[in-house]
């Protein structure tokens, strides 16, 4: 087996195991010591580190943009896209004026494998696994849907109370260490201005809320920015996205990530559903990783640039 010796040799066009992604992250840190650092924000249920890459050009506690990929473990194209984003950030800094301006004032925080237990399980035991791996007392069914476990409308309609359901919300909000670790980090950081949680696959860009029909107070701005982001995304390969609030665009969903972040005061809270060829679902062929990442990057840049230019 060929093990890449640096991040230039990493194969971005193929799927990788958790250990390979972890090695990639360590290499990126080693190659860019003045810009990239690795923060371990906690541990998964099975004891794996929850790694966040911090891209920073200096300062202390700068305003920050959070991006996480693949909280539902079987969505491999998201973790693969996250890896590509990490390399893109270090490559484009100093070359792309917009990204350079952002990084000169703000930090970017990137959690590439948000649910490492689940991701490892998809490689070893069940490719279709999407939840965490924590056992549920009194049930033979394992795991919680980490996108129903946040303290935003937790337990309301739009999540299941059955441990055997794919949308099981868990026994209580933040019961999953993968969620609680982000909650603690976001609260202690206190200066995160945009939060983008990336999933696949339905080709959507969504903003709060999911648990209530009450519009977010910034809905008009979030809507316009979503439109700009998906227009930029479509400019590369013509991929068409829908956009809107979670509850209006898909269905009522309670306990979701971006509803919580928005209620914490992070105005630019979005959740992505990346591309869908309509033929493969979660088994998206590896040759679509880079196109997916490339087009998504344009939308991310739109959100990051808007956040940078509209401080609050």
């Amino acid at each position, binding site marked *: *087996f*060929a093990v890449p010796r640096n991040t230039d040799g990493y*194969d971005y*066009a*193929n*799927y*990788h195991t958790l250990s390979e992604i972890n090695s990639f992250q360590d290499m990126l840190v080693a190659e860019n010591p003045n810009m990239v650092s690795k923060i371990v924000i906690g541990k998964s249920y099975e004891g794996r580190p929850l790694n966040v890459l911090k891209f920073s050009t200096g300062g202390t506690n700068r305003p920050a943009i959070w991006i996480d990929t693949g909280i539902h473990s079987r969505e491999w194209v998201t973790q693969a896209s996250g890896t590509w984003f990490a390399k893109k950030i270090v490559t484009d800094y100093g070359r792309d004026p917009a990204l350079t301006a952002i990084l000169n004032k703000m930090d970017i925080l990137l959690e590439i494998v948000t649910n490492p237990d689940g991701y490892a399980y998809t490689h*070893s*035991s*069940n*490719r*279709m696994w999407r939840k965490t791996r924590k056992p549920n007392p009194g049930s033979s069914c394992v795991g919680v849907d980490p996108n129903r476990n946040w303290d935003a409308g937790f337990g309301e309609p739009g999540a299941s109370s059955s441990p*055997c359901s*794919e949308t099981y919300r868990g026994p209580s909000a933040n019961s999953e260490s993968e969620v609680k670790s982000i909650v603690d980090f976001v609260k202690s950081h206190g200066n995160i201005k945009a939060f983008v949680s990336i999933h696949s*696959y*339905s080709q959507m860009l969504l903003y709060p809320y999911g648990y209530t029909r009450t519009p977010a107070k910034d809905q008009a701005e979030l809507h316009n920015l979503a439109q700009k982001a998906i227009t930029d995304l479509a400019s590369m390969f013509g991929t068409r996205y829908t956009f809107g609030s979670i509850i209006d*665009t*898909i*269905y009522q969903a309670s306990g979701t990530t971006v509803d919580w972040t928005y209620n914490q005061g992070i105005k630019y809270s979005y959740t992505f559903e990346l591309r*869908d060829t*309509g*033929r*493969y*679902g*979660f*088994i998206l*062929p*590896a040759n679509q990783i880079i196109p997916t990442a490339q087009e998504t990057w344009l939308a991310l840049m739109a959100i990051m640039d808007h956040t940078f230019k509209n401080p609050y």
Partner: protein
Amino acid sequence: KETFEGHQVLRILAKDDVQLSLIKDLEDMIQFELDFWRGVTDVDSPVDVRVPFHSLQSVKIYLESQNIDYSIMIHDLQVMLDEEREEMQSAAR
């Protein structure tokens, strides 16, 4: 290792809200052990659902008896998973 021989992924298209509701009823039929890849939203959005081999006949009969259109998006999931694994191993080599 859990395998998915004979599992199919169906793409279901509702014509109206009545059919949408009938598709949503499938979510509650836990004996089918369905895995909704794309959930029920509106008539403009397809529903993708992974159906285990043991439920295929029942689910298809249910859909056909309600005159609900569907197509087979993935004929045998395990075949695709085997191809994916082979591709990864080949790339690693």
